[in-house]
């Protein structure tokens, strides 16, 4: 079990590092998919089955495909640029900021004794039945608001990306 954690963490971190480092955009998206798979595997390891399946369904099935479509529609894939063309201006300040934040996070984790806690109850497992019941009884208002939000996002994305065609006509 511990070995599973280390292997999956290695896969996830490698996927994330490659996703922000590679020059060819399609390769970046493929390593992002590896990252999503690693996170989904972590969810399964943490006994949250439903969330793991939802992660695969939504992120790999929808968000990755969306990013690939956006890459196709903006024609900007090539992998032959050098580091000067890939990094934005003042990239060192971005790295410094991220480094400082990393140090702060490290300090916050190891400040108290919480970091040594072990898992509390290893037998219980979440069930989809309870999640469904909770979504319909206690959490029904956020659920409906989420439905409205997703509809608004759908219509908004279509309107934003459609503008040029309508104006040309």
């Amino acid at each position, binding site marked *: 079990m511990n070995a599973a954690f280390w292997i999956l963490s290695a896969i996830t971190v490698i996927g994330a590092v490659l996703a922000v480092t590679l020059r060819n955009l399609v390769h970046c998206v493929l390593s992002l998919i590896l*990252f999503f798979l690693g996170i989904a595997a972590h969810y399964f390891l943490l006994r949250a089955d439903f969330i793991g399946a939802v992660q695969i369904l939504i992120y790999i099935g929808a968000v990755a495909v969306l990013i690939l479509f956006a890459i196709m529609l903006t024609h900007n894939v090539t992998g032959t640029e050098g580091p000067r063309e890939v990094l934005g201006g003042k990239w060192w300040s971005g790295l410094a900021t991220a480094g400082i934040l990393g140090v702060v996070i490290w300090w916050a984790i190891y400040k108290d004794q919480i970091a040594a806690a072990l898992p509390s109850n290893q037998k219980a497992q979440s069930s989809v039945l309870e999640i469904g019941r909770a979504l319909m009884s206690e959490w029904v208002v956020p659920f409906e608001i989420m439905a409205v939000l997703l509809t608004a996002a759908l219509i908004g994305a279509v309107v934003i990306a459609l503008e040029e065609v309508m104006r040309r006509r």
Partner: protein
Amino acid sequence: MSIPLGHYLVLSGLLFVIGLCGALTRKNAIIVLIAIEIMFNAGILNLIVFWHYKEFAVLTAQMFTIFAISIAAAESAIGLALVIAIYRHYKSVDVDEMQSLKG
């Protein structure tokens, strides 16, 4: 499984910092959106980690995660639609060139 909580927190912190590096460093707007997705996932992983380690019986963390994943997906859809619209106008997805607010 006997992984201390700190290891999971370090993992999600590391993923967050990697995403932040990518978002602040790269020039291509789509890679910035990819890095934002990485940051989102790192944060959501924290919720499930704390659910597993502390409050196994309560479902609040899973509800929060479902809603957070949905919102992340909606946000990435809108972000990518914006990138496509900007590409049509500026003919490039370089964040350094998008400097004026005039349409």
